[in-house]
């Protein structure tokens, strides 16, 4: 017991007993003890001067933290749509048969726990799983059985990925560096001129310091760069708002959360272009006179943490971060390692800040906006990593060059994550304005019936939409494109999206908390042939209420999968709605089965089935 207390003390001390680093501490506890026990919660509460409930509510919010032991090995198998399309079912069965327990539980000896997760940012190499923070990709039932054997033998998860063994081998590019050693592949199919173009480290920063911050800001504004996270807010304007806000210190946060299922471009950016990103943060810092920076990394990308810290260290010794950067006296900017996020969704940036400060990822009220009062109440710029990377090239090559790429309103390039039924899933950096049809050809789409652009909260397009352009004018998105082939049941995938929203809703506001469930239940009833025409109308009405009354972006967009398919694929619903009668289809036999079993009655069956 005293060992236990000492261990918790050590973890708290590692993060200076700072309550805003609670999430880091909880992760460390989870990793060490395989769960966050009530005893650990109480100890931390005492140490940090928080209440037991404060900690409890944070633990219960994040799906990688648990209040029950999750096994010496914890397997999180992705059950998102791409995974299901690529054979999730077979892999899951292989895991549970070999391990001897079902998903959602832990073996009796406490060795292996099997759980599912919604998305891991590995859409181009599904089926993927996370075992004790180590990523395993392209899983098959055969590979699953091999992994289980290794776990039963006690091989540490990290040792299962080596140069080339039966378990798996290192991926391409930096993935094989000792500080990463991951089997993740980049799948960078089409590098473009901005994010993956020629880049000379430090060139942009040296150009920055030769100008005034105002001139740098003006150049970014002139480039007409807009946020790459999906919403497309003009970056220059955001920087200017933050630069003008009152505050003793300013902050730059790079959002590498990419929580929308189907996005994985940031993974490749972080692996191959980390320095470009960090330099972008420094460019921003110079323009808005910020002194602190933080990288907000999603939990599934934990395997990149050591590498990223190395890059930061190297940049500090190269005088590209730290004090008097690039020889400019007074230009001080430090990026404080990696903060963490575990909730796979932070479209609303206020959630990200709550999470980065160690709390439940619930949306903050606005105003104040982050530019006025953000990270630890500092005026804060939060930008997608792709946005920040682009600013480096803008400063280096000029706004005019940048504007020559893309379209009038959407300048530059977009890095897309393409997955699903195609020959070449992976990352594509293309100029804005490219059409969906061109992308489908580029990726080698196989008999597509639909393309989901922008993740579950984006748009579900049909064959008639081939001319839709990827741009802020036509179809804005964070760049996830999921190609759904004709062999798949589209509504099953939509049901998977709705499951994601019911899971991810933080529960803070009622229209989202209940609306997501009501939509999902109605959809399921329709899929079971028990729907009515009125259900279609009522789903539209409920969606309209959710769009108007929910608190953050998740709720505003949670009904999109339903609305899009009602609009673009009405025949799928029509085919499932039975001939109109006043008597609804209802499976009475199934409904009384549980009570029949309990009391020991054979069957009611005295009722005609409708």
């Amino acid at each position, binding site marked *: 017991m005293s060992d236990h207390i000492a261990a918790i003390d050590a973890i708290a001390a590692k993060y200076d007993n700072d309550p805003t680093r609670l999430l880091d501490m909880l992760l460390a506890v989870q990793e060490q003890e395989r769960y966050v026990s009530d005893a650990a919660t109480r100890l931390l509460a005492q140490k940090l001067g928080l209440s037991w409930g404060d900690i409890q509510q944070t633990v219960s919010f994040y799906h990688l933290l648990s209040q029950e032991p999750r096994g010496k090995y914890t397997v999180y198998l992705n059950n998102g749509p791409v995974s299901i399309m690529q054979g999730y079912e077979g892999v899951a069965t292989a895991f549970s048969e070999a391990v001897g327990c079902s998903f959602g539980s832990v073996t009796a000896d406490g060795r292996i726990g099997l759980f599912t997760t919604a998305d891991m940012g590995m859409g181009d190499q599904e089926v993927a799983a996370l075992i004790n923070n180590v990523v395993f990709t392209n899983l098959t039932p055969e590979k699953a059985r091999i992994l289980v054997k290794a776990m039963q033998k006690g091989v540490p998860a990290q040792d299962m990925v080596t140069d080339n063994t039966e378990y798996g081998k290192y991926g391409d590019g930096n993935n094989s560096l000792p500080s990463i050693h991951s089997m993740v592949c980049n799948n960078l199919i089409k590098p473009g001129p901005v994010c993956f173009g020629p880049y000379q480290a430090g060139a942009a920063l040296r150009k920055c310091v030769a100008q005034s911050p105002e001139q740098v800001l003006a150049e970014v504004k002139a480039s007409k760069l807009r946020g790459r996270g999906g919403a497309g807010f003009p970056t220059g304007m955001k920087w200017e708002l933050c630069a003008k806000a009152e505050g003793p210190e300013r902050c730059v946060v790079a959002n590498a959360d990419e929580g929308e299922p189907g996005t994985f471009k940031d993974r490749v950016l972080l692996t191959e272009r980390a320095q470009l990103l960090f330099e972008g943060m420094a460019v921003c810092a110079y323009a808005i006179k910020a002194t602190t920076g933080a990288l907000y990394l999603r939990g599934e990308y934990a395997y990149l943490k050591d590498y990223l810290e190395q890059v930061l260290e190297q940049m500090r010794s190269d005088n590209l971060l730290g004090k008097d950067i690039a020889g400019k006296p007074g230009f001080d900017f430090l990026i404080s390692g990696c903060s963490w996020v575990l909730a796979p969704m932070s479209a609303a940036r206020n959630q990200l800040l709550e999470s980065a400060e160690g709390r439940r990822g619930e949306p903050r009220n606005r105003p104040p906006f982050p530019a006025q009062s953000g990270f630890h109440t500092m005026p804060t710029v939060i930008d997608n990593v792709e946005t920040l990377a682009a600013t480096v090239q803008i400063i280096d090559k000029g706004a005019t060059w940048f504007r020559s790429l893309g379209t009038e309103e959407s300048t530059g390039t977009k890095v897309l994550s393409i997955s699903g039924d195609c020959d070449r899933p992976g990352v594509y950096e293309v100029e804005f304005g490219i059409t969906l049809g061109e992308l489908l050809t580029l990726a080698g789409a196989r008999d597509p019936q639909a393309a989901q652009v922008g993740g579950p909260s984006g748009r579900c397009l049909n064959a008639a939409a081939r001319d839709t352009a990827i741009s802020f004018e036509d179809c804005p998105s964070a760049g996830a494109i999921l190609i759904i082939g004709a062999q798949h049941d589209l509504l099953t995938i939509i049901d998977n999206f709705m499951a994601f929203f019911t899971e991810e809703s933080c529960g803070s506001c009622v229209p989202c908390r209940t609306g997501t469930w009501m939509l999902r239940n109605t959809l399921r*009833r329709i899929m079971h042939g028990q729907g*009515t025409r009125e259900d279609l109308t009522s789903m539209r009405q409920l969606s309209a209420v959710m769009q108007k009354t929910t608190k953050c972006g998740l709720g505003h967009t949670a009904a999109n999968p339903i609305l899009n398919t009602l609009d673009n694929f009405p025949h799928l619903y029509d085919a499932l709605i039975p001939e109109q009668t*006043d*008597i*609804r289809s*209802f499976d*009475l036999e*199934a*409904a*009384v*089965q*549980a*009570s*029949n*079993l*309990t*009391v*020991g*009655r054979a069957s*009611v069956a005295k*009722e005609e089935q*409708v």
Partner: protein
Amino acid sequence: MSKPIIATASLAGCFGCHMSFLDIDERILDLVELVQWGKSPINDIKTFQQDCDIALIEGGCCNDEHIHTLREFRKHCRILVAVGECAIMGGLPAMRNNIPIKECLEEAYLNSPSTSDANPDKIFPNDEELPMLLDKVYPCHEIVKMDYFLPGCPPRADLIYGALVALVTGQEAELPYEVVKFD
């Protein structure tokens, strides 16, 4: 023309809505001028002797007999009105919807203080005449098409009376705020 026939039923309800209906007091005399009574607990007529025009349904469906009854009402009645919270949403009985039915039965017949000693053989009632509980309590509109919904727990007598008269006379119901507010 003969007078329209009205029927009523109480499914998984508490009869509170029927009580509220009776709270129309002496207006029941006006009502009998307008309608004839068909199957209803109020007159204890247990089977449909002829098809009815309007039926008031109290309560949702918690067992197989409710499903059967509601389907019979749908077949024999022109207009079905869901009366009260339980018929519309499942109401209080639906509070069990998050608890597996096995746990509900064990709590009621094996583990509760009043039954644990009295039921040493751990018997669940299981006579063939007894209806079987459904896995969940279902609102009426998930079983059959419902034409109108009168909210309240129970809906006020004025609301039930006003709605019935409107349906019978074909005039628009007057439903001032006071009649449908509940706080």
